[in-house]
């Protein structure tokens, strides 16, 4: 934010940053072969549903398209509204590559409709040899990734293992553009998968 924006109190919500979503496909190779972290075959994209007529039509159009392609590939898609008023599109597909493509399809449809600034993040679920769930979260505003590891049984209590997250950062840091500022590694509680 520039001095001028601060003085005039003008504030625009950022749209998506340059796309680094596909970096996950590359990083996954190393994750799987070297660190035994495997994809759970499910991913979600989170956005703010606006209560406007054209937004709803864009979302339902997009849902139809993604559903059509998803059923061709043997994938499924569902939507959840969480208690904070955000909408999750949850996509299940055994191939991580296809998941990334599907998530990108959803965000592109929103950007194309002029609602790019409503897209929050995408979440991909993984599991490790000792971790029941490792989430990789893609922050659309910054075009960066960060790991999020709720501790076993701690997801409801709001407990995360920062140590494990930092280890994972060290493991994938070279392939994946990881968010440098730790205070922006926002947890997401109540992930519906």
């Amino acid at each position, binding site marked *: 934010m520039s001095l001028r924006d601060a003085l005039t109190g*003008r504030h625009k919500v*950022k749209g998506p940053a340059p796309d680094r979503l596909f970096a996950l496909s590359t990083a996954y190779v190393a994750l799987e072969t070297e660190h035994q972290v495997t994809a759970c075959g499910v991913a979600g994209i989170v956005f703010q549903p606006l209560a*406007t007529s054209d937004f709803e039509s864009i979302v339902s159009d997009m849902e139809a398209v993604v559903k059509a392609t998803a059923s061709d590939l043997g994938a499924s898609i569902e939507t959840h509204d969480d208690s904070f008023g955000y909408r999750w599109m949850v996509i299940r597909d055994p191939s991580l590559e296809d998941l990334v493509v599907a998530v990108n399809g959803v965000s592109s449809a929103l950007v194309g409709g002029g609602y790019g600034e*409503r897209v929050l993040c995408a979440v991909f679920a993984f599991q490790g040899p000792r971790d029941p769930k490792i989430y990789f979260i893609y922050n659309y505003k910054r075009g960066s990734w960060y790991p999020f590891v709720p501790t076993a049984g701690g997801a409801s209590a*709001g407990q995360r293992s920062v140590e494990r997250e930092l280890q994972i950062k060290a493991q994938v840091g070279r392939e994946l553009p990881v968010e440098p500022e730790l205070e*922006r590694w926002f947890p997401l509680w109540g992930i519906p998968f």
Partner: protein
Amino acid sequence: MTPEAPIGGRRRRLYRKSVCDNGFVAARRTSFGRDTGLQARMLGTMFLLGLVYAVLIAVLFAAGAGGVLLIVIGGGLFLVQLFASDKIALRTMGAREVSAQEEPLLHATIERLCLQADLPKPRIAVVDTRMPNAFAIGRSQKTATVCATTGILALLEPAELEGVMAHELTHVINRDVVIMTVASFFAAIASMIVQFGFFFGGGFGGGGNDDEGNDILVVIAVSAAVYAVSFVLMQSLSRYREFAADRGAAVITGRPSALAAALVKISGSMGRVPQQDLRAASSEMAAFYIVPPAAKRAVHNLFSTHPPLEARLAALSRLETQLQSGR
């Protein structure tokens, strides 16, 4: 919009552009237009404030009365105000920083807003009082603290609380604490001169040196005028910052009407809840609240820090209309 936007998206925008080529096309890229009028009024007020302070400085130098000393004292006060005011304010308010385990909903709400607004996470504090209110302090995004009362947490629905928190985060984004501190700085100096001036000025005046006595009287008079004028201007600046924060909240959440509902709820219950604690704490803090504590039946005029509720609701309803019509 990023240059990497997919081709489909670009085509759609071009299509819109040709359909409604009325000069507002650039603004359609986001869900809301710009409020140029508000920004112009705000800049105008800042300009007038600056002008008033320039006159003050000119008179001070013309009088030559301890200019250097004044600047040293003033500078020291200014730094204290800028760097310690947030801690002092939090302490006087009785605010307590809360962890994610203590207030999971508040934390999660703010975390999602930070993701959306591209902000680092602020510290989060709670004041234990039934009065529903919220405020933000801190001179930068990194040092910001967002504070809510237990009353507001109990009163509002999640979407309404989100709107209020987005309002406070917009104060952080807009650096309103720094701007109001800077704006109030010379007013503080002027009031200091008026106070000390009466004190010392009387002695000088009787001392027989008419010239010096007159000079000091002039300085006092000008300082008093500066204080009066800058006070009014600052209050109006504060009101414009409130409008800007309401607007920012609507832009971040995409739900102007949720914030409007929250404002109605807060100001409605404000009158019913006994209001000794928050208002007694510090009247200077009033500018940072979401709704001023004394708003029950306050006369909204030149001297209030917040715009009247009706004006804020009208501005939010204009935003909702813009959003719905897709302009």
